[in-house]
């Protein structure tokens, strides 16, 4: 155990886990109560196109996937606001388009020298101090936004039209929230991977809603759940010698379903 904690890759993973616990725990609340969970999965998948483009151009995949995710998050938001498309339609199209572009970029590159499964399912060995710095930077920006605008975000999520008649800039708030969603997803890719990240978007607040119907407790439970899931998953993956991201998702799902079952009986 002591050995484990002194290993630098594991330290990095734990620190990143702590950062992501707060980020996803908080973010998940608004994604779930706004019924945008499919959006989380959709945006994560568009990151694949970005990663592949980065590999093709020889740019850091983090940058290109951040661009892909941000652009698709904002475009989807705009298209839905203008009632050009429904969320499901817009996400379904972007999702597939970005994956297709990703496949094309990889085919163009020809050489399969990069760790595809690492991007898809996460690879904590790849975490470095730059990732931690970026994660911490996003945390520092996200926390004031989240708590400063919490009540306005809550109002806009509950009742968009009425919120806007009382001076809440719900469109702007939603756009900023979507931008954070995109950024948070991108920084978590090394930890959990493109395919698994949607679990971290959906599960925390869904768990919180099982526990309470008071938003304060839902948010608190959501953060606690994410922390237990990520750190629990990390330790377990070390002892079982299993992939970390996948282990976290399984741990989270087990906690969720156990809680649901206990609440029912």
């Amino acid at each position, binding site marked *: 155990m002591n050995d484990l904690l002194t290993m630098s890759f594991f330290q990095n993973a734990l620190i990143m886990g702590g950062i992501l616990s707060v980020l996803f725990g908080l973010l998940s609340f608004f994604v779930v109560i706004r019924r945008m969970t499919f959006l989380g999965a959709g945006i994560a998948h568009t990151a694949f196109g970005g990663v592949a483009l980065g590999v093709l151009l020889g740019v850091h995949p983090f940058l290109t996937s951040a661009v892909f995710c941000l652009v698709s998050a904002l475009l989807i938001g705009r298209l839905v606001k203008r009632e050009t498309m429904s969320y499901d339609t817009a996400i379904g199209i972007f999702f597939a388009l970005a994956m297709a572009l990703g496949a094309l970029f990889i085919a163009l590159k020809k050489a399969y020298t990069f760790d595809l499964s690492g991007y898809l399912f996460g690879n904590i060995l790849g975490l470095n101090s730059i990732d931690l710095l970026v994660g911490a930077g996003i945390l520092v920006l996200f926390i004031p936004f989240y708590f400063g605008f919490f009540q306005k975000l809550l109002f806009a999520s509950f009742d968009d039209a009425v919120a806007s008649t009382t001076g809440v800039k719900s469109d702007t708030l939603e756009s900023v929230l979507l931008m954070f969603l995109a950024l948070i997803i991108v920084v978590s890719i090394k930890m959990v991977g493109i395919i698994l990240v949607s679990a971290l978007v959906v599960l925390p607040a869904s768990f919180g*809603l099982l526990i309470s*119907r008071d938003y304060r407790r839902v948010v608190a439970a959501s953060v606690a759940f994410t922390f237990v899931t990520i750190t629990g998953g990390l330790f377990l993956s070390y002892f079982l010698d299993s992939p970390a991201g996948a282990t976290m998702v399984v741990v989270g799902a087990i906690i969720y379903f156990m809680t649901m079952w206990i609440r029912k009986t």
Partner: protein
Amino acid sequence: MEDLPAIVFKDVDICYGDFVALERINLTIARGELVSVVGPNGGGKTTLLHAVLGFVLPSSGSIQVLEGSPQEVQPSGRIGYLPQLSNYDRNFPVSARDVVAMARFAQRPFGTKLCEDDRVSINESLNVVGMLDKQHHHFGSLSGGQRQRILIARALAGEPELLILDEPSTGLDAVAQDSFYHLLQEIRHQRDITILMVSHDIGTVSGFVDQIACLNRQLHYHGRAKDCLTPEIVRRTFGPHMNVLVHDENCTSCEHAHE
């Protein structure tokens, strides 16, 4: 300032694509008045309110609300709004009080908590709709009428100058409806605010409001409710079968009109 009207529509047309929902609307509502819009389903009542709120733009004509354009006034928090039959997510994790508090939080600067004034106003609004004892209940678990009362309380809590209510009596029981209309009159006198609402029960409403506006794409009538609202007008607005709709015991104001 006081004498300027709260709402002015000048030759307003509103279209959804090719469809003309409102045609040549001229309407002036003075400050402090309680006005009800009546009309058949699809007559454009909600559209009229949306135009006041700035959600839809006129394709011609001009609208003034509280001395500004709807777009200018909308974000100022001077308007309280209750939408028609909103479908809220029953699992949304807020209490009845949290919902009313939203109206106050909306006006707070970035990251600040509620102050004493806010709390007083929230309590008063909850009290006025008779929901103080249920304030800590989960909003989604309340009955439809109780939720409607909470949403009315939220519209009041912002202490607006103009209150816009789209079918506020939907879901209220007979007692609550009656006391609700009394309440509107009371609020109007106490706080000197203008109230524009949509209602379907012409009979009841015409006993309470100052002015009534009959809307079916065009404005067929706008004026005092009592005595002046003739069956001709009602028929023009609602079509020839309207008598069936207004013939009931509650319909005191147009009693003589049916004969």
